[in-house]
């Protein structure tokens, strides 16, 4: 993988009350980066600071301290805006326009020469065939999400920033969205995906960052995060069942692994495989955010 296009360095965002008597730290010294071509899952419970971080990355919020750079440029710069696509959480567009009109106006504002044919094709790709000329006021939340995705894909962006993109979608639509994200990633786009749906992140992300109460509490490759620290699964066929297909399994610590294997061999069991033990992302998430005991 090439050098990271997005660098977030000790980002802090503090919100003050209107009269300045109280303050709330939404993001507290968060650092991470995204490598080129990867899909980064951005996780955290409600109020963890995910959306605030994303808005700082997009230049919608001014960081209190720390820095964000995208391809070495500050957020919100013209070069950056040309190369990214953004799918907001609960997207809203002016209700009096149709998806085709929005596609045409956004293309023009971005300096793209998108033809009506291309717009129709893109709207069809996100599942909006037949809805191209219907005003947005008639659209459900899920349909607005689809319009939002079409607008984000319009420029074939180098980076897709998605804030809960599948929030209002049914399972079929979620699958379609996932497929599109993977297609875009295969095309070469880097994806920064904030999601509550852990199964979704576990399925498609290469790496994840977990936030809790504004702080980063875990980060790593998916494999690294899910692997149980120093725990192994040993599959074996007991001596009395060596001709059977049904293997037994024991989970042991790294320290006890050698003696467990020796013991099984001593019992004439056949060792089938020894693999690192994995947890579900939900377990990782709950442990990292301090809710594991609940």
């Amino acid at each position, binding site marked *: 993988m090439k050098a990271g296009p997005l660098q977030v360095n000790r980002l802090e965002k503090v919100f003050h009350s209107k009269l300045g008597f109280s303050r709330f730290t939404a993001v507290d010294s968060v650092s991470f980066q995204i490598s080129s071509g990867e899909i980064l899952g951005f996780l955290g419970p409600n109020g963890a600071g995910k959306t605030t971080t994303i808005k700082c990355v997009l230049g919608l*919020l001014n960081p209190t301290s720390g820095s964000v750079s995208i391809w070495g440029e500050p957020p919100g710069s013209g070069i950056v805006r040309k190369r990214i696509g953004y799918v907001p959480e609960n*997207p*809203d567009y002016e209700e009096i326009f149709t998806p085709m009109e929005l596609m045409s106006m956004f293309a023009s*504002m971005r300096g793209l020469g998108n033809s009506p044919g291309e717009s129709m094709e893109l709207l069809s790709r996100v599942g909006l065939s037949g809805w191209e000329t219907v005003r947005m006021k008639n659209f459900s939340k899920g349909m607005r999400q689809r319009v939002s995705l079409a607008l984000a894909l319009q420029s074939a962006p180098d980076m897709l920033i998605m804030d809960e993109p599948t929030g209002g979608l049914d399972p079929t639509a979620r699958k379609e969205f996932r497929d599109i994200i993977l297609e875009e990633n295969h095309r070469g786009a880097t994806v920064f995906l904030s999601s509550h749906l852990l199964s979704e992140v576990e399925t498609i992300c290469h790496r994840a960052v977990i936030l809790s109460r504004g702080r980063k509490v875990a980060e790593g490759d998916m494999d690294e995060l899910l692997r149980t620290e120093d725990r192994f699964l040993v599959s074996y066929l007991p001596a009395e069942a060596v001709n059977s297909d049904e293997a037994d399994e024991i989970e042991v610590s790294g320290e006890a692994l050698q003696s467990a294997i020796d013991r099984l061999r001593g019992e004439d069991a056949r060792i089938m495989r020894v693999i690192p033990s994995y947890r579900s992302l939900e377990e990782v998430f709950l442990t990292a955010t301090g809710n594991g005991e609940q």
Partner: protein
Amino acid sequence: MRPVVTFAHMTLRSLVRRRTIWGISIVILIALVGIGQIPGYGVSNQGRFILDFGLFGLELGALLLAIGLASSIYPRDRERRTIMPLIAVPLSRGQYLMGRFTGAALVQSASILTGCVGLMAILVLNGHQVPADLFPAAALLIVEGWFLLAVVFFFSFWTSPPLNAPLTVLLFIVSQLSVSGFVALLPSAPALMRTLRLLLPHMDVFHIKDPIAHGLDIPGIYFVLAVVYGLSYMAFMLAVALAVFRKRDLK
């Protein structure tokens, strides 16, 4: 430039589809019908009266249009979060401001021109002469309207719409005051008040209804200087508005 033009067009279409323009047209029509009733009251110097009253209506119209068109644009965009996808990707904050401003300015200018044409029609229908300076006077009112729009945008970035309107009206009133009138507001600090008056806008330069109604000629250079003054102050207000907007967090 292209993003600004497209966004201005989008703003214009939005204002048209929201029926804002139709509301404005009805108000203009009612005002013109009202002015058209003047001859029925048998006042002396009818032509002068119609002109005076009509241009005063347009002055007031420029103020109300600025408040009506612009005070809720940015707060509505924020409240409905339609601003997020715009500022995040296709538009810079400057382009957003200029696009919204240009769209609203087009609607406002068209409305003032329509009012001016209506006033001209009333004069002609009642057998009065249309003064040559009527359209330049309307042009000055359009420039004043643009300036007021810039003021409304500036206020909208740091106040709520209910506060925006009185602040704009207050500035409109204060900017009509003469130096002596302004000093009279705080006679204990005349130097401060004179300096403040110098810095605050002089919107009285855009109001030439009295000389026109009295048939006086306005020198061409006056129009040029008034337009340059108005556009310069408008550019200054937009620059200040943008500086405030850039500091705003879009939560």
